């Protein structure tokens, strides 16, 4: 259907405004602090330094080496609190708060705060708050949630009635942390306190602190990608300390996580909304491309391409459940363009687009071959009450979970970041778990007859699994056609096996 003239015109406006938002919206990393310098350098705060140089020499030393210290920003400029603040405490005569929230940092770093609010990072806790206990507490206990999950996803920091911070929820620098002042996120998730070094935050290490391990294996992926290989070899040429850090201009040795996901490249400015350039939702059973909806109040949310496309000015629900007026919508295509524009600093358009095509193909393969059939089978098992509603009490649920959440994520993320070995490892794990465990467990749970019917409907009848329908088709990979099958003697076959073992 041809879009009406008006639609295409408004689409143009949306695209235009987003293009400018993505390309020219915000300033470079060291965004200029617009607050009057009179607003910091607290007199009272100067008194902290003497004692803390002794009582906590390490952190004071870090601060002394920071840009904050150079600019006369002292302890109280960040830690000062009002008596009424939920988490305010009295400390040596001053009223302070232990936690410095994004709201506190945002007093000076307004641009970064605006970008960070509503980014996928700030949703790290809220999105999975209801789901997390099932995994954490069934496999561990709330303890694991406090010491593991919440350390990256963020805790909901609880101030107790006696003014102390609940030790289950603090210390925590999880990126989706819900702070006592109501703000969301934690700048120190990436920016190690109290030095807040630019170079440190640009290192892949700032990201892989959380993006590593079974369900977010980006450390392993980056390390086995060409980009990671180049970074390892040319670490010293990265110009990490530079104030301005534009890819292709201030450095070109290798891209780090920051480069592609939030860094400045060419005309595109850096942005603290780290998911802005992602077109796919890769952490789902079935990946979908995502619109980025920006509301008039600056908050954001993502919508799948299967959802109705919101129009500018329309009121739709925001992530917190309240309604918001849509200011702009960035299509997955626009988001992909933004990401690809980083590639172009080093690669040709054709090269970059083809790499993206290879990535998209892997995502679609995972969706069609494994994600959709596994999801459909599970839905039938639940609706037929073959499985209890309780997650993870049946083996097939664990296999299903690992299939998309762990191995599936590895394959898709690895394809995105061009790590061949991890793409294969991911897909190989998905395949072996799907054929080797999942299908058998479906039969175990549903009974052979019902299980076979389900598998026929969702698996055998799909072109992706058609190979299952040809049991007679031989291949020597597992030794078929050798030894006994070829009429060779048993002893010869056994001897060969033995030789192989040696």
């Amino acid at each position, binding site marked *: 259907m041809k879009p009406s003239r008006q639609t295409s015109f408004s689409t143009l406006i949306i695209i235009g405004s987003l293009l400018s938002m993505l390309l020219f919206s915000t300033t470079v990393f060291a965004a200029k602090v617009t607050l009057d310098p009179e607003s910091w350098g607290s007199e009272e705060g100067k008194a902290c330094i003497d004692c803390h140089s*002794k*009582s906590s020499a390490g952190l004071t030393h870090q601060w002394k080496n920071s840009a904050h210290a150079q600019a006369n920003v002292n302890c109280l400029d960040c830690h000062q609190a009002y008596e009424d603040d939920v988490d305010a405490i009295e400390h040596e005569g001053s009223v302070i708060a232990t936690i410095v929230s994004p709201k506190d940092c945002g007093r000076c770093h307004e641009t970064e705060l605006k970008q960070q609010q509503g980014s996928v990072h700030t949703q790290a806790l809220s999105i999975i708050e209801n789901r997390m206990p099932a995994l954490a507490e069934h496999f561990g206990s709330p303890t694991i949630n406090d010491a593991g999950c919440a350390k990256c996803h963020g805790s909901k920091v609880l101030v107790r*009635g006696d003014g102390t911070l609940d030790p289950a929820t603090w210390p925590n620098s999880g990126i989706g942390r819900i702070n006592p002042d109501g703000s969301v996120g934690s700048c120190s998730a990436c920016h190690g306190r109290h030095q807040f070094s630019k170079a440190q935050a640009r290192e892949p290490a700032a990201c892989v602190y959380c993006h590593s391990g079974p369900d977010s294996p980006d450390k392993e992926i980056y390390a086995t990608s060409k980009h990671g290989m180049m970074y390892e070899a040319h670490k010293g040429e990265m110009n990490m300390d530079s104030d301005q850090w534009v890819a292709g201009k201030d450095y070109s040795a290798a891209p780090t996580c920051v480069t592609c996901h939030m860094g400045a490249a060419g005309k595109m400015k850096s942005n603290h909304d780290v998911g802005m350039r992602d077109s796919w939702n890769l952490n789902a059973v079935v990946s979908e491309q995502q619109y980025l909806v920006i509301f008039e109040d600056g908050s954001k949310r993502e919508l799948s391409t299967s959802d109705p496309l919101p129009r500018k000015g329309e009121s739709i629900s925001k992530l917190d459940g309240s309604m918001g007026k849509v200011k702009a919508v960035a299509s997955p295509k626009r988001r992909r363009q933004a990401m690809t524009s980083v590639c172009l600093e080093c690669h040709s358009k054709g090269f970059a687009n083809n790499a993206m095509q290879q990535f998209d193909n892997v995502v679609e393969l995972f969706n069609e071959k494994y994600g959709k059939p596994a999801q459909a089978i599970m839905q039938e098992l639940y609706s037929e009450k073959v499985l209890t509603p309780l997650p993870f009490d049946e083996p097939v649920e664990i296999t299903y979970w690992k299939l998309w959440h762990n191995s599936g994520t590895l394959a898709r993320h690895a394809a995105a970041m061009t790590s061949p070995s991890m793409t294969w490892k991911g897909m190989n794990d998905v395949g072996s778990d799907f054929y080797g465990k999942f299908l058998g467990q479906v039969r175990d749970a549903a009974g052979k007859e019902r299980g076979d019917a389900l598998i026929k409907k969702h698996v055998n009848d799909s072109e992706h699994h058609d190979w299952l329908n040809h049991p007679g088709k031989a291949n020597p990979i597992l030794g078929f056609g050798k030894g006994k099958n070829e009429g060779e003697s048993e002893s010869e076959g056994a001897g060969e096996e033995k030789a192989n073992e040696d």
Partner: protein
Amino acid sequence: MKAPVKRKPMKINNLLPAFITRHVLFALIIGGVAGIGFILFLTEFDHFTSSEEFCTTCHSMELAAEPYRNSPHYKPASGVRASCGDCHVSEGVFAATWDHFIGTKDLIRQLFGENYDDPVVNALHLPEAAFAAREWFKKRDSATCKRCHVKEAIFGERPDTQQIHLEDAKEKSCIECHYNLVHRHVPDKKTFKREAWNSMIEEEFGLEKGTAKKLLGK
């Protein structure tokens, strides 16, 4: 040879002014002994009434003693245990007696006031008690702390501890930095939030929301 000088016989009355009669003398001796006895009694009395044993005869004080018994002031590495009165009663028999005299208001409240023996009521009123105690320490420049602790002698385990006490805390009184050492943690008066405290106590004792307010309103 000179004739011997005739001495006046040694008579006690002759040594004292005339108004000190025999009766007055007896009264003085008895009074003096009684006075010494009274001071000795006060000393013993203050000593006894400063002990943990005496203080915890009121059940409400048992609730304050519980956290104390888990604190380093009760279980110090050195073996020097501070009893209730060591911190909460001034030094010197007169000051101590005065403190005990003032302290009788607590006794009156215990007897005729609210039911402080109830752990909930006790916990709800604890913050005000803590604020008053801190004020008391501040007014006396942490005098009772200094009975045992000498600023110049605080070496600590890290070299910085001594330095901080000699340099940064030179003009400071112990209580300014060191509170919440012995009894249940109570925030400073400035940042104390009554509603949050009430909710905490309600949660702790499994009480319905609003119970604390009702109890305090009584």
